[in-house]
């Protein structure tokens, strides 16, 4: 398969990227509204933005502190 053929399939990735972005934005909004997190806030910011997909989920599962 040539590169151009692979490119032809790139649109398939768009929904995946949309899901990832939605998750990331939801995590960021949650992080910014939250007063306290488990561990420093800036670290979570990096995790959410830099670690694809897993970052926001790890934040949601263990980063949030019960108010």
């Amino acid at each position: 398969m040539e590169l151009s053929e692979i490119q032809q399939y790139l649109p398939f990735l768009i929904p995946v990227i949309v899901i990832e972005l939605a998750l990331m934005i939801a995590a960021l909004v949650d992080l910014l509204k939250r007063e306290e997190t488990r561990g420093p806030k800036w670290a979570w910011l990096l995790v959410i933005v830099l670690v694809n997909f897993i970052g926001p989920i790890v934040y949601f599962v263990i980063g949030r502190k019960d108010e």
Partner: protein
Amino acid sequence: MNFFSVLRKELTEQWRTKRFLIVAAVLAAFGLTSPLLAKFTPELLKSIPDMPAGLAEMIPAPTVADAVGQYVKNMSQFGILLAVLMSMGAVAQEKERGTAAMMLAHPVSRLDFLMAKFAALAVAFAVSLAVAALGCWYYTLLLFEPLAWGPFLALNGLMLLVFLVYIAVTLLCSTLARTQGAAAGLAFAGLVLVAGVGSLPRVGEYFPGRLFEWGMVLALGGGDPAWPAFWVSLGMIAAALAAAWLVFRRQEV
């Protein structure tokens, strides 16, 4: 009957605390990426510049079986992990936070309390799995060939059943534990136990994990049913929930 009022609260909670979003996003992402990965892994391997010509020839062209196989594999690993992660705090958190005591002083029976948790998790995983299945089915159609939707639906039903087994067992662990930390520890012990015993050669025939194989073969047009594993799974759900209720009923919160 206050079951539905409590269920309503559970569903709202899942939505507001973004738990539903997590489940839906993770499962949907696996639904979409599974066929994609199946299609492109061989292509990517072939495109490695130093690949000897002979070896490249030996990599088989991907088929629809690879797409379904990838989907089932992802769900059997990450789906189950997610089911445990999302359920382990369910009861323990409310006990630790004190909301369980607060609610149980109102007309909420302990059975309603537990069943609403199970039902809400079941709804979240069912809806998310439906979204994932739709994505997987559509991408498989575009990249490979159409899957017969009936058997594919059956595959997803069987996978949901396995998730429910893990959710029920994890809820039992969460009920047994006093704190969230203890609940997490117990839940992973439960996961290792159920998955571990299920991977043993002869006993595995009767364990929920066997349903993945059955579903996969089914989706690809084969037979090989595993009814014993099916009934055992239903039994495990009922037993785990009943045990959780018996424990919770005697517990002082």
